[in-house]
């Protein structure tokens, strides 16, 4: 009995890894081969949003904490990176025409004569790299402790995160001299002497970004399949019961919220590097809610689904807002409504319903074929095998066998 469960778990993980392999192949091989560097850079930009979507799967899908302010953490990570790059771009020599050389141009325009104290440490790359993850996580920690220890949750928490996003946007826009205001931090040139604007650098950054995304997916998967992941699910469905079982619910919530914030911040930093600027338009309420819809479209319970959801919605957005700008908002609104009403499990849910059985059958045939092949012709490959193997990945990757039981389906 126990052994069977272990086997089933192993096969679940195996199919997830296969899904990850297909996704990685798509990101690492197919995309770079199909797109020129301009389009690939665009894909890279979308993939930075996927970090946020993955974070949301952790805290919203698994933990039941809907944050409508994830843009805050994305933005904080991005701003930390941008501050370093901006300081490097405004060395005394290239800013010699300013009245105070050596400080960023927008500070000079705003009559600042000295670098503000919180900009000082961003001269150091090591500090910046640590700050990129640490500052947003710390911020999330403060919000999390303040809210979850007081048992503020559900819609209240969602509204408060929105307010936090509003506050941060107002602050960034309002304190133009310190933050670059509504334009954000622009004109970023080099990272530690390495020009990030060349095509070569863009390729390298794309692959670093993709690698970080896969790493985040692996870490997230580790968390969700650990005991902690189980507890999160239990908490989401019956918080009181978990509390009465003796667990300190708020600590788990704080942890997963910080985790989501840290992952989002990675995305923000990579966004700055790849796109070359950071502005408050990625911090506020509207982008934050849009990021929630990426997750919802992909499937709020599915880590891989979140990445596909992000890519799909963003391709759609780029296509429609280039060709039919008026239509896009209607479509976006319709997407919100229909995903919530009809596909609460998103793309991943659709896959589980319609494709999983076929892929599983193909997988079974493949395995049976291989077993038969091993028996009858150990030396040569059976002719039928290649065919069945080719149908296996089947476009949308994911789980071949039973996925984790989706509690959303059991709702009354």
């Amino acid at each position, binding site marked *: 009995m126990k052994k069977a469960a272990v086997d089933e778990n192993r096969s679940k993980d195996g199919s997830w890894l296969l899904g990850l392999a297909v996704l990685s192949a798509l990101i690492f091989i197919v995309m770079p081969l199909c797109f020129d560097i301009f389009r690939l850079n665009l894909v890279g930009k979308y993939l930075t949003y996927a970090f946020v979507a993955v974070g949301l799967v952790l805290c*919203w899908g698994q933990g*039941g904490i*809907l944050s*409508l302010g994830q843009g805050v953490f994305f933005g904080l990570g991005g701003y930390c990176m941008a501050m370093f790059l901006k300081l490097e771009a405004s060395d005394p020599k290239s800013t010699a025409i300013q009245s105070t050389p050596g400080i960023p141009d927008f500070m000079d325009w705003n009559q600042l004569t000295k670098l503000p104290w919180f900009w000082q440490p961003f001269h150091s790359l090591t500090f910046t790299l640590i700050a990129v993850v640490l500052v947003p996580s710390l911020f999330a920690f403060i919000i999390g402790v*303040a*809210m979850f220890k*007081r*048992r*503020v949750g*559900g*819609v*209240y928490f*969602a*509204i*408060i995160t*929105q*307010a*936090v996003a*509003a*506050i941060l946007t*107002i*602050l960034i*826009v*309002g*304190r133009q001299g310190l933050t670059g205001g509504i334009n954000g931090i622009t004109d970023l040139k080099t990272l530690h002497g390495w020009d990030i604007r060349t095509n070569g650098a863009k390729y390298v950054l794309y692959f670093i970004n993709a690698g970080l995304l896969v790493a985040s997916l692996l870490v997230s998967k580790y968390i969700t399949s650990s005991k902690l992941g189980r507890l999160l699910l239990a908490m989401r469905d019956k918080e009181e019961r978990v509390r009465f079982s003796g667990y300190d619910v708020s600590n788990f919530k704080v942890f997963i919220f910080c985790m989501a914030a840290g992952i989002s911040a990675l995305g923000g930093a990579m966004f700055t590097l790849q796109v070359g600027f950071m502005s408050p338009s990625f911090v506020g*309420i509207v982008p934050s*809610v849009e990021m*929630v*819809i990426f997750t*919802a479209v992909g499937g709020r319970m599915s880590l891989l689904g979140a990445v596909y959801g992000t890519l799909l919605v963003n391709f759609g957005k780029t296509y429609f807002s280039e060709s039919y700008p*008026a239509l896009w*908002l*209607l479509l*976006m*609104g*319709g*997407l*919100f*409504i229909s*995903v*919530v*009403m009809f596909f*609460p499990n998103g793309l991943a849910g659709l896959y589980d319903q319609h494709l999983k059985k076929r892929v599983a059958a193909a997988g079974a045939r493949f395995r049976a074929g291989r077993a038969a092949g091993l028996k009858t012709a150990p030396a040569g490959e059976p002719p039928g095998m290649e065919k069945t193997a080719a149908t296996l990945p089947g476009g949308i990757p994911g789980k071949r066998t039973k996925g984790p039981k989706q509690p959303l389906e059991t*709702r*009354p």
Partner: protein
Amino acid sequence: MGGYTFSELGSIFVMQGFSGLSLFCVYLLMALGLAIIFGQMGVINMAHGEFLTMGAYTTYFMSKLAVDHFPALVGIYFPFAIILGFLIAFGMGYLLEVLLIRHLYKRPLDTLLATWGVSLVLQQVFRSAFGAREVSATLPAWLLGSVKPTETIDIPLNGLFMMGLTLVLSLLVFIFLFRSRWGLKVRATTQNRVMSGGVGINTKKVDRMTFAVGCGIAGVAGAVFTTIASTGPTTGSLYIVDTFLVVVFGGAASLVGTVASAFSIAQAQSVLEFFLTSSIAKVLTLLTVITVIMARPEGLFTIRVRK
């Protein structure tokens, strides 16, 4: 306080207090409908601002109709605009409840997302239908001008009118809730849904009516809103986050709480605005609200009920 004489400071407080009162009215008008809906059903209606916009556009078109075709009626179109604004928003709210909201009562977080979608769609519909440019209704002559009680104090009439309307509307809502049969059912459902069902109240019907009336109030708010500001496709969404904070701050199920929190948030913001920059004033106000919510997660005023 930086070179102001005592009487000047007094005038500043009166004027800023007055602009705070205008803001208070906007918050209250929007929050009244939201508070009833959120209190009773726990539904976050992100499209609430769009119902306000609906009422505002209705008023604009009524005024246009009056100016273009019935110049004699320009002075008296306003009450009709209010009624029509209510009816349109009420009808749309009813429709929204039937089509969307009632399927999602078990999933409050999802309602939030779905109604956000509704708000996006409505905004785009407004933009396509009425243009992206902001429009203003032609106000009747008796709404223009201002009162000057002293040399330095100047109070616009339309602001006073808006306050009067807000007062009347709030009173109506109070009477409706606390003196009518329907209000009794609403309060019973808010306090204990299952028990209300047990004593024979059709809670689903009550939900539908409450949602529609809440939206209708937003429609009236929109009509009133046209007297102090112009209307654009995104007018309603400008205030939605603030309004939610008002509702949460006041305590979801308490109307007195909503009034008190709308008043304190609006006053704090406009008085601070004079002494600091407006962005810092806003940040300070929001931060204070968040801190208070942290200290009292249920809001300022709570109705104690057994769950």
